[in-house]
């Protein structure tokens, strides 16, 4: 495929991510931090986010399935996830975390479990879309092109 077509696909994909609120303007901040001296910055931060989030989601799952649920502990995990998702512009994930925190504060186990499912769902969706975006970026660079500036 021609570089131009790949670049167009990239623009379409990322525009959709913003339009569908998977990403917000904080992600643009990340893109702006990437330059010739830090060409892989976005991938590096997002990869770190994936690792960190998966750890938090596992911890949350475990915390919420204890015989006696420690809601403060769960809240702490959600707060961390909310913070890191907000920092990279993962809008939908962050929004679920807001509701999730409310459930933790209320000690609402059913609500928490529902939020956990929802946040896992949003996270998985976001991850697959960003991985597709990064794969496209690799193709563009391999074909000798550069990423369009938004």
């Amino acid at each position, binding site marked *: 495929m021609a570089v131009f077509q790949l670049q167009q696909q990239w623009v379409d994909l990322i525009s959709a991510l913003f339009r569908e609120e998977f990403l917000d303007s*904080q992600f643009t901040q990340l893109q702006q*931090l990437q*330059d*010739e*001296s830090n060409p892989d910055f976005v991938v590096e931060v997002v990869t*770190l986010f994936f690792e960190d989030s998966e750890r938090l989601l596992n911890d949350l799952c475990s915390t919420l399935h204890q015989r006696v649920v420690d809601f403060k502990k769960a809240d*702490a995990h959600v707060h961390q996830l*909310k913070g890191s998702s*907000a*920092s990279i512009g993962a809008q939908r994930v962050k929004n679920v975390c807001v509701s999730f925190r409310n459930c933790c504060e209320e000690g609402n186990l059913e609500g928490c479990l529902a939020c956990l499912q929802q946040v896992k769902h949003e996270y998985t969706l976001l991850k697959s879309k960003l991985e597709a975006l990064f794969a496209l970026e690799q193709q563009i660079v391999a074909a000798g092109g550069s990423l369009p500036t938004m």
Partner: protein
Amino acid sequence: MNCSSFSPSEASPEREADGGELHVLAVDDSIVERMLLERMLKNSAYKVTTAENGVRALEYLSLLEDARDGTLNKAVNHVPQIDRDLVLKFRQSSHRVQEDRSRSGFEVAEHTSDQHSLGDLRKKRQRIDVGKPLKHETSYLKEIPVVIMSSENIPARIEKCLEEGAQEFMLKPIRQSDVKRLRCHAKNFSEATPGRLCLGI
């Protein structure tokens, strides 16, 4: 890529009037946020050290004090290790330190991951003994400006932090433009010192 003469990646290191480089200690328990902060600070041409919690931050600062007293080699050998291990948020309670000069450390609000709210910092405040007394009553460490960052916008808590001596409060997520503003808080110390500014949550 067109670079203007003020492109961040081309900026020369920020320098104080005495020629020292501006150095920021960034404290945050989130590895993702540390990475972002570091990049943004470096883009504004600051030298950056990151810390993952208050204890680590204090350890680093106490090493800086060693360096200032001429035990520079020790500080240099330890710094890389601390850079890897550190991640903390801390809040320096400058008033307290000045009141009681016999104390050996800063009052540190221990930021555990389940107590991100600034209001809880008061309850969790504990003395962290850095292992030895601060060498000078008017140690420059006490003068390091502190900027607090939080994802929660709660006026009463923010006010409390500012009353306790923080220079500014910034709402997270932090943007490049927020980091650029830090310049105004960097202090002129009477002598050249390795530390300039502390950034904490």
